[in-house]
């Protein structure tokens, strides 16, 4: 299936989009590499949920989005946040718990948000963000704007009730919501086949009365095309879409976590075929870009990432006066 659709949709991926997607993916990868270096060297500490191997999905989806479009994601959402446009310095500073972060260091890596770039919520509760994204879509519909609400979640989140309640509501009200299920094959340490007998998750969501497709989440042309249709449908009042984006988690659940439960051959093969390298080669092979162009992009994003991390590290911890602010609109409401 991936084959077929790739063929027919390639044409639909314009050069500028193709290059910008590469830049986004390269930025995500550079940031993950930089964080890994920092963690391995003991330069800093943080809980980090790797996104390696899942870069294509948000890079392709965001190509169809505007800053005023909404996005909701999960703890494993650094790639989504970067693609949606959270300033890199604020992003890293938040992950480090510094006052220069998106949440002044009070949220942390599992709670990145920046309404200015449309990234409204990052939740640490599996499935918890899905109903919220439906509400963002409802606000757009009630206001008559053409904003779209995109919600990212994992394959494991399809087992939890909130996701189903939200899907039914979004379909019922024909809301401008795109459900982006990043199907990386695992829920923490449990493989897909060990927690459901469903073959294609899209089959579970289609019956709610929404478009639901399974797409190769590691193929830029496929993801670009599928996301384009979903976003266009939402923007034009055509209702929600469920995108089952097939990818593979190339690391453990979190930084340093074991992968002993993952089939070694499959993992090795997936790493060898990892999407950034695959896409880079494709761009050159298809004459979409020259080796030099891509190397230059890589140089630029490395520089940007390096600068962001340096700036973030220079940001101090939040002061103790922050402990009980932002609890309520007015601090007087805080019980003593």
């Amino acid at each position, binding site marked *: 299936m991936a084959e077929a659709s790739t063929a027919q949709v390639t044409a639909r991926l314009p050069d500028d989009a193709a290059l910008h997607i590469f830049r986004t993916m390269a930025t995500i990868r550079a940031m993950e590499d930089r964080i890994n270096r920092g963690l391995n060297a003991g330069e800093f500490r943080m809980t980090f949920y790797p996104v390696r191997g899942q870069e294509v999905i948000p890079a392709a989806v965001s190509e169809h989005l505007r800053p005023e479009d*909404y996005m*909701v994601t999960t703890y494993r959402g650094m790639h989504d946040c970067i693609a949606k446009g959270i300033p890199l310095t604020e992003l890293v500073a938040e992950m480090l718990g510094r006052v220069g*972060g*998106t*949440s*002044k*260091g*009070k*949220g942390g890596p599992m*709670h990145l*948000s*920046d*309404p200015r770039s449309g990234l*409204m*919520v990052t*939740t640490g*509760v599996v499935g*918890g963000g*899905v*109903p*919220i*994204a*439906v*509400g*963002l*879509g*409802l*606000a*757009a519909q*009630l*206001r008559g704007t053409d904003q779209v*609400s995109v919600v990212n979640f994992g394959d494991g989140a399809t087992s939890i*009730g*909130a996701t189903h*309640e*939200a899907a*039914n*509501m979004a379909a*019922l*009200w024909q809301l401008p919501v795109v459900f982006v299920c990043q199907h990386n094959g695992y829920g923490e340490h449990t493989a897909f086949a060990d927690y459901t007998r469903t073959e294609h998750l899209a089959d579970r969501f289609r019956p709610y009365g929404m478009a639901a497709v399974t797409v190769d989440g590691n193929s830029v042309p496929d993801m670009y095309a599928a996301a384009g249709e979903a976003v266009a449908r939402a923007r034009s009042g055509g209702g929600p879409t469920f995108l089952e984006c097939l990818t593979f988690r190339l690391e453990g659940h979190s930084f340093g976590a074991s992968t002993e439960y993952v089939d070694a051959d499959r993992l090795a093969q997936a790493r060898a075929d990892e999407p950034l390298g695959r896409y880079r080669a494709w761009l050159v092979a298809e004459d979409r870009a020259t080796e030099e162009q891509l190397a230059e992009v890589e140089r630029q994003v490395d520089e940007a990432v390096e600068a962001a991390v340096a700036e973030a590290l220079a940001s101090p911890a939040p002061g103790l006066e922050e402990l009980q*602010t*932002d*609890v*309520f*609109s007015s601090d*007087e*409401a805080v*019980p*003593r």
Partner: protein
Amino acid sequence: MTTVEDPVHTLSEGVNQALDEAMSDDETVFCLGEDIEDPIGGVMRGTRGLSTKYGRARVRNTPIAEQAIVGCAIGASLAGMRPVAEVMLMDFFAVCMDQVANHAAKLRYMSGGRTNVPITIRTSVGGGAQFGAQHSQSLEGWMMHIPGLKVVVPSTPRDAKGLLYSAIFDDDPCIHMETMSLLFTRGPVPAGHFAIPLGSAEVKRPGTDVTVIAWGKEVPEALAAAETLAGEGTDVEVLDLRTLVPLDRQAILDSVAKTRRAVVVHAATTFAGPGAEIASLVSHELFGELAAPVERLGAAYAPIPFAAELETALYPDRGRIAETIRAMA
């Protein structure tokens, strides 16, 4: 203050008026919940007439899906709307506490103030109507314990109108508890625009000998007990907290500093319940100044029984309140 000219309405009508005023004042206010559209207008009638007046886009029935209802309200509020969600009965918060406690309550803080969640969740609180163990719980204790939630419990039609209106326009998530046993009790309600600030308790009956601190279902019981005791020469002050968060600490301490005796009364289970916070506060702040230990009267430690005889015995009533006060003299 309430004036003699104020027309008389039920608490349910007070709720309905607050919703109507808020929706006419502000386009961003809308309601969602189960069975809230006309002709039913909410199983407790709170939204009656509103879908007809404002349309089904702004007063919308939902599937039976409380996580989606509350989550949807949260999302819409992040985008600048002021949703009023209805959770039919407080017991059903148990199916959506993740949205309430892990999301609505925390998003402002977790975003360092960049986002906020100006939602109101209206809910009916049972008890005393033989609805059984799963349809009668007063769970304000759960809500008070989660930083970031405001908790509102009117006991009169007037308070319901004024407090709900304030809750809707408050910039934080508010839980508005509508006590079923009081929904159809009547009282004066100011016409037109009317708001009561959150966080202000009200002395519903001034007194000098003992302070009864109560809210919701137990306020009329406290007032009735006060009447009885007045006949026996004991002058009881009844303080209706009206909002539990923000808590009117000053009003509590001022009253008890004066009377030197306090009884906290609520329909929630006594053990590890909301009254423990009030009792601890008073015992701590007025240590050595009290004439008697602070008494707590709440529901007995048991799931709420169905049989009328048992359910009646479970809750504090005017009789037990009066007895308790007599024993403190």
